[in-house]
């Protein structure tokens, strides 16, 4: 069959699509035969070829088989010629079977018709249990039933079938016959003698029988001698030049390749496996691209792009600069630390060449970590203010532009003990100081020459000194203990001194005329203050009036006209605040009850208002209407001092809890600005009253701070406050620094009283 199949197969394979058919192939193969194969095998072959698309010639050989088989079995009218013949004969046979009668009509003796039927062939070939063995008629009885008998059954004639002789009998027979060793029962044709085999020949026979190598000592697996190997020998086995055929493409191969190529072109061979439908797999695992619909979003504050991984540095290079390479110690430290505690997740390593770089073993880890970071990082814009801190600061003018303001200590005034208070007189020539030594001193401002002094406190310190405003008279008020002294220092000309004396003495006589208030039980109430002469010694010094109140006076504040002054004695309960009238020698207690311990008081610079500071609040009262106007709450815990801007609408407050507060009275009762620049308590604050927009505070840390505080008349505009200078120089003595400050009435000069026993003038 093979010879006949090969050309047929070839025909099938080399068949061309009609348009591509060339003369050569048509000439070679018969048209009808070719087409017959093509027409029916085209479709059927597809299924078979699909299975083995890429295997080579073997498949081609295999595929022949069904073709041939088909041709043989059910050849079609236009099939191969010999096939057609077979089928025609078969068909004629089939017609006989179906239609012809199974008898023959013969003439009998009578001359009548006689049907002679054919013998029936019972076909015993079939699987018929009735069909018995012809020899033994015992049927289906097992032979073991005949074990005890010498026969094993009966034949069709009824004769016993005797049991055949068994091995034992044969062996006994054979044993009775002695055969020589090596006897074969054959006759050696050469000698005519019986052929006997030698021992060696028997051994060879045995080996052949046992499938061993007959020859003794033969090695069936000798070591291979590689005559042809990849190793190029110095002396080649053959010096023959390479034959030409080695360089020429093989025609045969070309033909075979062309055959495959044609098959591929026709589509009979598919060079690749057609994609299988994978519906089942999709059911198993479904991946969603969650960023499928993602579009580039406009730059907006809520749009948070994934943070970029930091770019690799030099130490990530496969060949980093040597300074990036870890030393042995560093390596050891890195290895010994816990993975989570490591600063870097890798060690810089040097490789000679890029191809020696191993695969990055932590790639998965790293990708996972990165994904985790992206996934776990809150995609919420943190409201982080990325603002230049300098731009947050208000645009304040530079201090240099705000000159003049005091910058250096120009004059030093020396006391023996702590100076508690000081004041520059309205003409700006004199500076009065009072301190722990109980002496009131007056210095010339620019030369620091002490021009006058008087010891008014025997044991008590001088708590406060204040000049009477106005240049028509020169009167200094000072308080030591419970006494307030009014004095005319010997620093003025005779005319002014006379005017001052007249002012002081004008009130004598008034006190006796006033009706003393009576207590509930009718007794004369103790007057709140007694105005007397202090005694000849002090009178000779110029101290002319002594006012004795009930408690230690800490603060004296003059009304701008110079006729009233107010004193504060914080320890006195009801009579803490007193207002004294100079022209009448009269002392009044304006408040029956105060909401706290009074600290200090101020007269409003232009309106009839009176400000009283308690520990936490400042209250302003209208003196004419006798009513409370406003309660200012600076928020400080312990107010030490305050001052009213000469314009009257702003207040600065200093507190023992280190705060300096600026209040705009038109704005709010709360501070407009809080400044906490001192490290210790603030003891005194003061506005410059001579036209410069300056104010200063004095603190227990031994420093003064000078501020530029410009107030504009425009209500819409807030005050500009610029700290311009810190004046340091006072020494801190027993936790006390600067006790009091005062401005020159006109120049930007500030004087300060220090606990170190000095006063300083800063200009």
């Amino acid at each position: 069959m093979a010879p006949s199949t090969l050309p047929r197969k070839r025909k099938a394979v080399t068949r061309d699509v009609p348009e591509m058919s060339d003369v050569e192939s048509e000439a070679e193969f018969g048209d009808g035969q070719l087409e017959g194969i093509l027409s029916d095998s085209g479709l059927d072959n597809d299924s078979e070829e699909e299975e083995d698309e890429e295997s080579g010639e073997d498949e081609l050989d295999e595929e022949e088989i069904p073709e041939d088989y088909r041709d043989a079995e059910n050849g079609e009218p236009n099939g191969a010629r010999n096939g057609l013949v077979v089928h025609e004969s078969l068909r004629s046979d089939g017609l006989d079977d179906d239609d012809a009668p199974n008898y023959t009509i013969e003439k009998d003796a009578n001359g009548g018709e006689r049907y002679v039927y054919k013998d029936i062939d019972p076909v015993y070939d079939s699987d018929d249990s009735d069909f018995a063995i012809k020899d033994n008629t015992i049927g289906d009885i097992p032979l073991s039933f005949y074990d005890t008998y010498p026969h094993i059954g009966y034949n069709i004639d009824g004769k016993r079938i005797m049991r055949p002789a068994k091995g034992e009998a044969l062996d006994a027979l054979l044993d009775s016959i002695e055969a020589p060793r090596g006897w074969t029962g054959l006759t050696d044709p050469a000698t005519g003698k019986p052929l006997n085999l030698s021992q060696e020949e028997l051994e060879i026979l045995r080996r052949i029988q046992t499938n061993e190598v007959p020859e003794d000592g033969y090695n069936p697996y000798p070591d291979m001698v590689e005559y042809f190997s990849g190793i190029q020998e110095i002396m080649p086995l053959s010096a023959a030049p390479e034959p030409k055929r080695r360089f020429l493409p093989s025609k045969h191969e070309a033909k075979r390749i062309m055959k495959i190529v044609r098959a591929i072109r026709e589509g009979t061979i598919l060079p690749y496996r057609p994609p299988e439908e994978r519906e089942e797999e999709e059911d198993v695992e479904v991946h969603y691209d969650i960023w499928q619909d993602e579009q580039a979003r406009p730059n907006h504050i809520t749009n948070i792009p994934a943070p970029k991984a930091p770019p690799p540095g030099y130490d990530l290079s496969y060949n980093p600069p040597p300074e990036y390479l870890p030393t042995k110690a560093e390596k050891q430290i890195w290895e010994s630390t816990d993975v989570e505690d490591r600063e870097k997740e890798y060690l810089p390593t040097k490789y000679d060449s890029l191809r020696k770089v191993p695969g990055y073993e932590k790639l998965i880890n790293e990708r996972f970590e990165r994904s985790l970071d992206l996934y776990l990082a809150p995609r919420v814009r943190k409201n982080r203010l990325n603002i230049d801190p300098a731009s947050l600061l208000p645009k304040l003018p530079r201090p240099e532009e705000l000159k003049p303001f005091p910058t250096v200590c120009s004059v030093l005034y020396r006391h023996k003990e702590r100076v508690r208070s000081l004041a520059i007189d309205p003409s700006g020539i004199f500076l009065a100081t009072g301190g722990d030594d109980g002496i009131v001193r007056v210095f010339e401002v620019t030369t620091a020459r002490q021009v006058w002094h008087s010891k008014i406190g025997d044991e008590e310190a001088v708590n406060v000194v204040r000049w009477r405003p106005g240049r028509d008279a020169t009167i200094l008020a000072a308080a030591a203990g419970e006494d307030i002294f009014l004095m005319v220092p010997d620093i003025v000309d005779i005319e002014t001194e006379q005017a001052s004396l007249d002012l002081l003495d004008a009130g004598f006589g008034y006190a006796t005329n006033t009706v003393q208030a009576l207590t509930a039980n009718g007794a004369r109430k103790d007057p709140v203050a007694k105005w007397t002469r202090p005694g000849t010694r002090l009178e000779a010094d110029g101290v002319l009036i002594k006012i004795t109140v009930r408690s230690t006076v800490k603060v004296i504040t003059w009304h701008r006209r110079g006729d009233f002054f107010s004193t504060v004695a914080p320890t006195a309960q009801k009579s803490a605040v007193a207002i004294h009238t100079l022209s009448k020698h009269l002392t009044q207690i304006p408040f029956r009850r105060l909401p706290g311990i009074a600290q200090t008081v101020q007269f409003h610079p232009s309106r009839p208002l009176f400000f009283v500071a308690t520990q936490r609040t400042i209250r302003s009262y209208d003196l004419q209407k006798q009513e409370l106007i406003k309660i200012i709450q600076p928020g400080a815990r312990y107010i030490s001092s305050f001052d009213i801007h000469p314009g009257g609408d702003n207040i600065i407050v200093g507190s023992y809890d280190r705060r300096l507060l600026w209040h705009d009275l038109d704005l709010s009762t709360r501070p407009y600005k809080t400044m906490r620049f001192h490290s210790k308590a603030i003891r005194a604050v003061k506005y410059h009253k001579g036209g410069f927009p300056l104010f200063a505070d004095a603190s227990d840390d031994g420093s003064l701070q000078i501020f530029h505080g410009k107030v504009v008349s425009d209500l819409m505009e807030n005050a500009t406050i610029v700290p311009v200078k810190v004046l340091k120089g006072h020494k801190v003595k027993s936790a006390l620094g600067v006790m009091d400050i005062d401005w020159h009435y006109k120049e930007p000069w500030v004087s300060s009283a220090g606990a170190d026993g000095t006063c300083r003038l800063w200009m």
Partner: protein
Amino acid sequence: METFISEPAVRQVQVQFFTNSPDIALPEEKQQLIVPTNIGRSGLSQILNSDSMLATPNIVPFQFLINSSFLRTTLEEYLSASGFSTETQIRLEYVRSFIPPIYEASFEHDDWVSSINVLSAHSLSGRDALKFAPGQERILSGSYDGLLRIWNKSGQIIATSPMAGDGGHTQGVKAAKFMSQNKIASAGMDRTIRIWQYTESEDGFSGKLKPKLELYGHKQYIYSLAVHGPSNRILSASGDDKIGVWTTNEASAPEAPSSLLPSSIRSKRRKSTASVSTLQRGPLSLISAHTAPVQGVIFKPDDPTVAYSCSQDHTIRSFDLTTSTLVDTRTTSHPLFSITALPGVSNQLLAAGTSARHITLLDPRMSASTTQAMTLRGHTNLITSLAPDPDSRYGLVSASNDGTCRVWDLRSTRQGTKEEGSGPVGEAMYIIERNSQNGAKRPVGGEGIKVFSVAWDKDVGIVSGGEDKMLQINRGKGVTSIAT
């Protein structure tokens, strides 16, 4: 001509020497010279002193001025800094180099020394100066103890003013001045001006101060006096913002205002019964032009009818004294505490010391376009006193509360930085420390070493007094003349 032939590598420049002092002037043919550019002041000074040039017996150090500012670098650097080539001819003015004022002596006082005045041939004018015998220089010092002292140059007190009870000052003296060889005016914290008759014995080792006149009128301390001997006029600057115009002529002086006389006081503490009664007079006029204490007043050097005053109200004002009217006001930016005229530069240049630690030079003429001509910076405290250099037209000395006197030369300037305000800024040539400090660090606020007054006399030197109770004389030897 080419006396100095230098190596060809060194560039040379032609210079022309000239001077304003006739005693050291070069002959005409020697004024032109070619000098190497790599020499500085000392090299040029050597050239001038050499035999072929001035042939001075003693070496006179010279300073050189180009365009009226001092040469501080080499010529090379000057040329490159100012952008001139070596082709140009440089006109070099040479002046005697100023010699550092060396400490000479200190005269001790009982109290702070508030004012200094020197009587010498050069401090007087007119006939008085001619009569003055050399060697009879006197130093007048006023002190805060209320006394005036007259010293000779060797430190002996020739005369002391009487105590308060005997017609002396009842409080500290703040200003004292010789009006003539035997007339002294003083004023101070007792608000009076006192005129003294000063008589000296024949040998010149003892003298007497006799109160002659008391002038009342000011209501506050008198800070400064200006005297004009020939016309017997006195100007006073006071803390009551007024300028007093006074005469020492008893006949023409008006009556003293009775309310200011000590006898008017009712208080018993002021009842100081004076054993000596002196004549009491009042002011010719009190000019209230200023709005703050007047700190200094001077006569215009060549015209006693014009006065300039400086005040803490930042102004310098000019007055016509014949009518006692304000003529002009020049406002500066700081309180002014001292004033002096610089007669050498021009009769119109005034120097005023401020509380802002510098000296302002300004031109008070009405026509002057800029108020502020120059600023001298360097002091660290308020400037209390100023005095012009008697020898140089460009020098002055200043006293300050920082305890130093500083000597300035107006030609030693640089351009001021923006912060200092544009315009030339001068720097001190020499700083005179208080000898009493012994070189210690200057205390804060000038405590104990404040200098209240300084005077500069041609014959005596720089005399200053202050809070250290010392009158200190400093003098640059050889400054005044070529021979010494």
